[in-house]
């Protein structure tokens, strides 16, 4: 009777101290049946990656409002790769300008979800790897 559960790390890199959005996402994903690990604000990419590995998550959701996403999101992707954990998928969220998305995707961020994203879209991505 194996019962594989999808595990997701929700982390906030960068310096902004607002985690209402991240907490909201964490609860939403819990209500969809996922196990969500929440680590709070101001996490370094190094801490995020070690946490993702120890927790053996399937996804890392990065939430950022401060504008440093172009450096921090790809840094997490790279560090996962360096640690042999490139199978853990990185998703971005928060306030990300439309024009930055192609570059982030090129650098290995699997999906970027803005403030208007519906729960269905996120679940669709987690379950089938599709969406934006």
């Amino acid at each position, binding site marked *: 009777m*194996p*019962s594989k*559960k999808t595990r997701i790390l929700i982390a906030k890199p960068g310096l902004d101290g607002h985690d209402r959005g991240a907490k909201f996402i964490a609860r939403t994903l819990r*209500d969809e049946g*996922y196990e969500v*690990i*929440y680590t709070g604000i101001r996490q370094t990419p190094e801490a995020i990656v*070690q946490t993702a590995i*120890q927790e053996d998550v399937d996804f890392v959701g990065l939430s950022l409002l401060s504008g440093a996403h172009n450096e921090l999101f790809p840094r997490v992707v790279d560090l996962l790769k360096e640690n042999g954990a490139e199978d853990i998928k990185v998703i971005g969220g928060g306030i990300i300008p439309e024009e930055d998305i192609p570059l982030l995707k090129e650098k290995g961020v699997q999906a970027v979800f803005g403030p208007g994203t519906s729960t269905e879209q996120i679940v669709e991505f987690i379950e089938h790897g599709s969406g934006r």
Partner: protein
Amino acid sequence: MDLVDDIRRGEVRAIARAISLIEDLEPEAELLADSLFPHTGRALILGVTGSPGAGKSTLVDRLITLERRSGHKVAVIAIDPSSPFSGGAVLGDRLRMQEHATDPGVFIRSMASRGFLGGVAAATGDVLKVLDAAGYDTIFIETIGVGQTEVKIVELSDIVLLVLMPGMGDEIQAMKAGVMEIGDIFIINKKDMPGADKLLMEVEYVLSFKNPGEDTVTNPIVMTSATNGEGIGLLREAIAAHRTEIARSGKLEQKRRFRLERELMGVLNRKIHQLMDVHIEVSKQLPDWADTLYRRKACPYALINKQIQNFLKEGRGDRTN
């Protein structure tokens, strides 16, 4: 198994993967647990329990720092309940321990209770084997002290730390309900808050009734303020002293032998369940059986006795194959 070697070498990814295999009840988890078992028995296992918000995670965070200063490798299993509605969970305990996230000598794992048959203990016991075999010297298990998990923590731990805080009002109720029985070391956390001294007196009073015999190990009470670090050194000394005392008195060995007995009973029960389910299809037939009972065409004991009889006959046939 390669995975076993990797775990014993302390490779973090292997350790993390192995824990998932166990949590997900994958078929290979049994063999994995048994391959690790000969390499276990070294770690000191500390259970940390108490009411929600009492400061368990903050205390563990502080204790990790002290353990690391004496060169010990530390692992933490933090268990939170799964939502009974969605089956999901938000696991937030490690938020208070994130300063240790990048320390290679610290491994922290959040677990959801998942409503396992046999409680959290079945999976947690095997997860402990992974961490023990991986060479962690001290392993903390954090669970909230309500529901079915708190009793299990006693079965799994060498020493149980019960964390209390002032101003809850229901603490004394909890003591009456027997929660006090499970603690080896009592921590009155948030001693910076009003009511801590009153709580100390109450705990001393309740403990005076516990184990009134002369040869029993005493239960230390330590007052702490986890957020500002007060009392943590004393707490660590109390843990070390308690460990020495139970090792000397033979209580530690007794506990560990008892734990193995409980583990064997747990495995046996689960195996019998599974066997029954395969051979007499219990889950599938249950509604039909209930139906015959409902129509008063059969009686519960006779029905089950007959099923067991049939099963035993079949079993004899199987053995000759």
